[in-house]
């Protein structure tokens, strides 16, 4: 029996060592003289959704006889988990896609290769073909880590049918937040004590809230994302959040509460069924809206009374795996996937906006619906997740406090005081 248990322990140790050995290095192999360099790259979504990527891969392989690229899309739901696990196991793709909320985190972990050296050597490719704000977002701590796949600035989306029915004018460029509130009031209707439609969605999602806070000269964090005290619970923040939650609170509310939204099937389906007149969200919403018969338009997000206007650019950036074996080739691939031709291909059917200046200007000239969306880029600011590795701590505490406030479990001041205290104590650790 004793002998047997000894051998068991040996087997276990062997198993551990084996699993340890398999880590390190990337999945790509080969690369010897005369042999093709093999690369893989991943995006979220399925093959059908990423038909452009399949096409780009084929063209890349044709243009680079010494490189063989394999495209491996990962279903959106499991993307983060799968990518993290494969990075841990050293099996991650050579090139992968990262969302703007994770830019800082991946750089912090040291798994993304800075592209500056490759860009310097490369005379045929200049970053100034891209939108300045967008490329700036992908520059972390002074280094260029990502190149753009696509992007979505937040804008105000409105339901034309509901405005027409109320005989009201559509939102325009001069709207302040007070104009929005007044319009939302008129567009909110009750029947027999029950709400049948709402004017505006002041929900829990933090991005629109950030833009609102910025308009009123405040933020949940200091500039470099190291302190919450005096920011998350600052007087200006408390005042702004009080106004923000008032929209969705009480019998005179003009926005659904989070419970209303869940009951009525979510904000975008409320919008599509003419139960929600206005919301602040990214351009990806078009994909859903175009499937329904809702008549919609987009406008600039309202400004504050002193004229401040803000937005956020949500984006997806290509990253080179820092542990990859063929980083020069991976850089070539990233360049291919983000360059002018790729931008033209992806934006040809209007699904996304091109990230390059020239092509975007062309779209702006002819697409009425996209004009305000593109213009919102000029007002883009960086949320705390894009300024600091501490971002997730701020977001967790802030959204927790919002939930408490929206469920009337706490006053705005108390909840934000507590959240700020928690953030600061967690950062100090």
């Amino acid at each position, binding site marked *: 029996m004793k002998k047997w248990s000894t051998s068991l322990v040996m087997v276990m140790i062997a198993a551990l060592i084996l699993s340890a050995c398999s880590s390190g290095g990337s999945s790509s192999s080969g690369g010897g003289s005369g042999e093709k360099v093999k690369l893989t790259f991943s995006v979220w979504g399925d093959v059908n959704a990423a038909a452009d990527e399949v096409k780009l891969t084929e063209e890349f392989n044709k243009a680079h006889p010494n490189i063989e690229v394999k495209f491996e899309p990962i279903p959106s739901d499991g993307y983060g988990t799968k990518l993290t696990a494969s990075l841990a196991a050293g099996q991650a793709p050579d090139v992968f896609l990262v969302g703007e909320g994770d830019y800082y985190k991946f750089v912090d972990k040291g798994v993304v290769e800075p592209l500056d050296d490759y860009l310097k050597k490369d005379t045929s490719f200049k970053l100034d073909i891209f939108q300045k704000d967008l490329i700036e977002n992908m520059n972390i701590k002074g280094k260029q880590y990502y190149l753009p796949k696509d992007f979505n600035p937040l804008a105000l989306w409105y339901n034309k049918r509901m405005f027409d029915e109320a005989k009201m004018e559509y939102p325009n460029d001069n709207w302040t937040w007070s104009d929005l509130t007044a319009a939302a009031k008129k567009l909110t209707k009750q029947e027999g004590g029950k709400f049948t439609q709402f004017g505006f969605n002041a929900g829990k999602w933090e991005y629109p809230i950030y833009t609102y806070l910025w308009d009123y000269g405040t933020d949940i964090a200091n500039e470099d994302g190291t302190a919450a005290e005096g920011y998350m619970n600052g007087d200006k923040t408390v005042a702004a959040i009080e106004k923000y939650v008032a929209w969705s609170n009480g019998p005179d509310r003009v926005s659904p509460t989070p419970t209303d939204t869940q009951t009525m099937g979510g904000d975008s389906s409320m919008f599509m069924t003419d139960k929600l007149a206005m919301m602040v969200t990214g351009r990806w919403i078009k994909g859903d809206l175009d499937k329904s018969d809702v008549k919609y338009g987009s406008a600039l997000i309202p400004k504050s009374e002193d004229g401040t206007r803000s937005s956020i650019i949500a984006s997806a950036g290509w990253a080179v795996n820092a542990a990859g074996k063929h980083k020069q080739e991976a850089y070539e691939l990233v360049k291919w996937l983000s360059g002018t031709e790729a931008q033209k291909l992806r934006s040809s059917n209007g699904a996304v906006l091109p990230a390059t200046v020239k092509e975007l200007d062309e779209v702006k000239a002819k697409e009425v619906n996209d004009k305000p969306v593109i213009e919102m880029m000029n007002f883009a600011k960086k949320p705390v997740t894009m300024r600091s590795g501490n971002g997730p701590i701020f977001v967790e505490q802030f959204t927790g406090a919002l*939930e408490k406030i929206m469920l009337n*479990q706490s006053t705005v001041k108390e909840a934000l005081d507590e959240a700020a205290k928690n953030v600061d104590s967690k950062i100090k650790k």
Partner: protein
Amino acid sequence: MRNSKSERSGYLFILPWLLGLVLFTLGPMLFSLILSFSKWDIITGIKSIEWVGLDNFKQIFHDDMFYQSLKVTFIFALVSVPLYQIVALFTAMLLNMRSRGMHVFRLVYFMPSVIPAVATSMMWIMIFNPEYGVLNRALGWFGIQGPAWLQDPHYALGALVVMGIWSVGNTIIIYLSGLQGVPEDLYEAASLDGAGIFRRFVSVTLPMISPTIFFNLVMGIIGGFQYFTEAFVMTSGGPLNSTLFYNLYLYNKAFKDYEMGYASALSWILFIIILFFTLLVVRSSSMWVYYQGDEERD
């Protein structure tokens, strides 16, 4: 030594199972035990595992969310374990009666247990919908304004408990087989002695199926403490962490915050908690579990 050859082929036969156990159960368990004394964010690979001693455990005992998840899980286990056992036993007794079409009823009660938990959860989200859900509509017929079940921190946990009753089919089946194992002559004898329905239940049925109760109780306790899927799908721990089950918190730590060491420490604490309660039941079983043919007891 004389049996060495047959011994060897014996091991050979269980080798596939043994490999599975070592590679997929014992190995990972050992690994998580090591991790529970370390810090690891997975992303940077196995080389970044950093030994921190008891830090994780020290931190856990100062973690408000840990206590919140423990509270939620204990309340759930305390209410749901006895409730499900009583409901399952009662249903099993009804299903044990001789009547036409009993097979149909048995099928109906067992069916929910065959449906995947995620599908069940999606269905119950609709049932619990405060405005359009069947539940609040039904309550409305009696003039009761039902609450926002899953969105109200006072009701969400209760809603999950209620929902769980629907899928106790497995437990019912095991009780049913236990009940069918009770010899008819015992009931007959009891009746002749003048025992009524209640008396027969207490003096014949309960002792005779006590091994089944024991088994179901142990499984129920383990299941109660490991509750996860429904909360993950339906509430994600909300509102206000009122359904933040222990396993859900553990999952969030591991796969949202990527704090593998911390999550491993949490999982070992859960292991000890479950072990404690299981042992408690096992130890107490000599007092209330009756095995037929066990002659030393009366």
